[in-house]
């Protein structure tokens, strides 16, 4: 049984492109269906459409078509760039114009960076049977810790200061993950509720920090921190407006690290065993208590890094509206990526692009919350592949899919 856990049967049965295709089929269709239903929401809340149908049925249909094309056209151009503009800019040869034209796709990578960390955090939790909904709060605390180290310590060389601030993010987030992990392991308090409570506590805490001990001198009580020192900055590669930074590659490295930890080490094996079947784990002599605590702490640390990179590489100072909900999106990311680090990276790229594209949609009076709606839909379809299979009449694959198990009840844990 333990052997099966380590090597999911699906790996042996099929390999190569066909397997990849089959694995990707349901998520791809889920994304597609999510976008289609998202379009319906855009249409039924569009004033132009109602105005069109007010004139005539034909004009209404035209308005529907026009609205969708405009909305998703804007999303595409905002996420990946406008091909026409890129070609023209390259022809023109103006360096600034080229940078502007190719910026959207690079900005999507910037958006994806905190997603990768946050998604990894949730995925690591899932793998160990824990549902970490507290990523948002851990991200905030991590960001605050990184900011503090970033501006309060002065005169360090960048080689030391930047990693130190980065690490502070991990420590802050890790602490915020440790508390619910400890409570879960020692008292059985369910992590879903505790992490959500920790979210709210962290929002209040950062609000207090930013208006009190960490406020920017002369900001007049506005909740904003001082700008971090130059030596703490994670470098960006290109001049303005491109913000692509080293943090993106650090995130990829961390994805590999988590993959290695989970799937190549004994420790990761233990962790996954605890997640897949705590009874079997206990029978095998694995210490469940310490595994839960370690998993939650690491999960929190990863979430803290999401906040730290965002501060050190992009924002360079901390304000209240820091993450735009990256912590909540991360649950969808981990599920979409089936809680594998590689899956999380791809899901993050997709969501980073969606979020980035949504900023362009805002210009069309479509609030960017549409992305949350689309995400929820994608999440539902990925979690319940039967819906997608029913819609598109796909047969159930012969081999059992490798699904990640998360405990479903409030059970005392002991």
């Amino acid at each position, binding site marked *: 049984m333990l052997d099966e856990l380590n090597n999911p049967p699906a790996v042996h049965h099929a390999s190569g492109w066909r397997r990849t295709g089959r694995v990707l089929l349901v998520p791809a269709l889920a994304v597609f269906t999510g976008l289609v239903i998202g379009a319906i*929401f855009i249409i039924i*809340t569009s004033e132009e459409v109602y105005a069109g149908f007010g004139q005539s049925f034909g004009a209404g249909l035209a308005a529907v078509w026009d609205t969708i094309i405009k909305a998703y056209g804007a999303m595409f151009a905002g996420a990946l760039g406008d091909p026409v503009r890129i070609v023209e800019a390259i022809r023109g040869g103006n360096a600034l114009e080229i940078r502007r034209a190719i910026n959207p796709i690079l900005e999507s990578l910037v958006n994806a960076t905190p997603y990768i960390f946050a998604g990894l955090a949730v995925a690591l939790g899932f793998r160990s049977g824990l549902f970490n909904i507290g990523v948002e709060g851990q991200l905030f605390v991590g960001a605050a810790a990184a900011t503090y180290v970033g501006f309060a310590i002065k005169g360090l060389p960048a080689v030391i200061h930047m990693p130190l601030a980065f690490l502070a993010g991990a420590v802050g987030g890790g602490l915020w993950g440790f508390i619910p992990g400890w409570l879960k392991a020692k008292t059985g308090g369910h992590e879903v509720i505790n992490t959500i409570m920790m*979210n709210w506590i962290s929002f209040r805490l950062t609000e207090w920090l930013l208006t009190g001990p960490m406020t920017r001198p002369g900001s007049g009580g506005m909740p904003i921190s001082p700008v971090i020192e130059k030596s703490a900055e994670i470098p960006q590669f290109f001049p303005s407006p491109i913000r692509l930074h080293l943090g993106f590659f650090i995130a990829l490295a961390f994805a590999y690290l988590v993959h290695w930890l989970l799937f190549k080490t004994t420790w990761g094996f233990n962790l996954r065993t605890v997640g897949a079947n705590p009874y079997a784990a206990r029978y095998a002599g694995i210490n469940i208590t310490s595994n839960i605590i370690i998993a939650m702490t690491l999960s929190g640390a990863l979430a803290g890094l999401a906040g730290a990179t965002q501060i050190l590489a992009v924002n360079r100072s901390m304000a209240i509206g820091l993450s735009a909900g990256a912590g909540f999106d991360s*649950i969808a990311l981990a599920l979409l990526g089936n809680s594998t680090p590689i899956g999380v990276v791809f899901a993050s790229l997709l969501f980073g692009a969606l979020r980035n594209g949504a900023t362009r949609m805002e210009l069309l009076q479509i609030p960017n*919350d549409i992305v*949350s709606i689309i995400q929820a839909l994608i999440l539902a379809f990925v979690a*319940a592949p*039967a819906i997608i299979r029913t819609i598109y009449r796909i047969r159930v694959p012969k081999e059992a899919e490798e699904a990640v198990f998360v405990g479903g009840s409030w059970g*005392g844990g002991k």
Partner: protein
Amino acid sequence: MATIVIHRKKLETITPTRRRVLGIIELVVAALTVVLFMLHVQPGQVSTFVMTPGGITQGIAANWIVPVFGTMLALTILSALLGIYQLVRGFGRQTNLVLGVVAFFFIFSFLLWASAGKSLNLAGMLSASVLLAVPIVLGAFSGVLCERAGVVNIAIEGMMLMAAMIGALVGSVTKSMWVGLLAAIASSLLLALIHAVLSIKYKINQIISGTVINIFSTGLTSFLSAKFLQTYQYLNNPPVFPRVPIPLLADIPVIGPLLFNTNIFVYLMYIILVIVQVALFRTRWGLRMRSVGEHPKAADTLGINVFRTRYMAVLLGGLVAGIGGAFFTLGSVGRFDEGMTAGKGFIGLAAMIFGNWTPIGSFLAGLLFGFSDAIATRLTLLGTGIPIQFMAMAPYITTMVVLAGLVGRSMAPAADGEPYNKE
């Protein structure tokens, strides 16, 4: 499918360690009272507790004037004595009650300290507690209904948020609070139906299903709010249910203004409390529902339709959550703000766990959470020197402490969270 064996833990086994730890905690609380509060008041100071909430004309009571130092001293000595007895002998079955009493003494000392030499509207604070408790208690009832039938529902937050928004929107458009309330309930029922279909029919993990609904409803409410409610103010201006005094009962001093001179949501809360408590534990319907939550297979064997029972339970839960959500806009501020439920749905779940999955227990736990929330908001006004943000953490921290102390001993329905496969 392996055979399910229901393990019933013994409720009242208090280990010697737990006894000692609690005793030490109680002594520490007594010591904290001295260090934090008693050393900071002058002898001779008094606290004036106003016993009639503002804006009330029925059931007026005289102000209550309390000497600060003497009262604190008495409470501290009592706490310390209780702690010592707990440490040495233990209170057995009464342990939690005693813990509650000590906590109450501590909170009261805190209030005395905060209001020393000033006046505090205690009745106003308590009536605010009841109002703040409404969504928490209704959320907890919603949880009780779902989970007694074996469906974990963490989507209560999302359902309440949606109901709050739809209630405000429809209430504003129709200019009728009743239509708004019905629309709010309908929207919540719709989300409950989605939760039921996803988790009962498609058998997806119930926590994931709940998370889907929470994300969806946060997204949709923010989307509609940004697109319409913020842009056109007349769409976000619903009528609010007024205060309705109950004849005679409202004239009782202290209790009258607190419980019987308030808005319809509070009365609905009492009514639902009675109905759910009686229905669950005194009727055949409730017995069937609980059996589905404890051992669906056995229930199925006896001819109970597990799926139908669970659908019914989740929908009823959605109905109750819808009322709780409508309270935010139609029963309280008369305006929808993004994310205004602020975790109340989850606190409701904690109240449910604290209340051991019973309506009456959830109700009392919900009142406790409401009280901690009210303390936070009221004391901010008194200016205690504690930052507002720390006060605002109170309900969340209370929730965590309560969960930590009690989940180990409370019993979830045995089949809670497990999809049922009919073979």
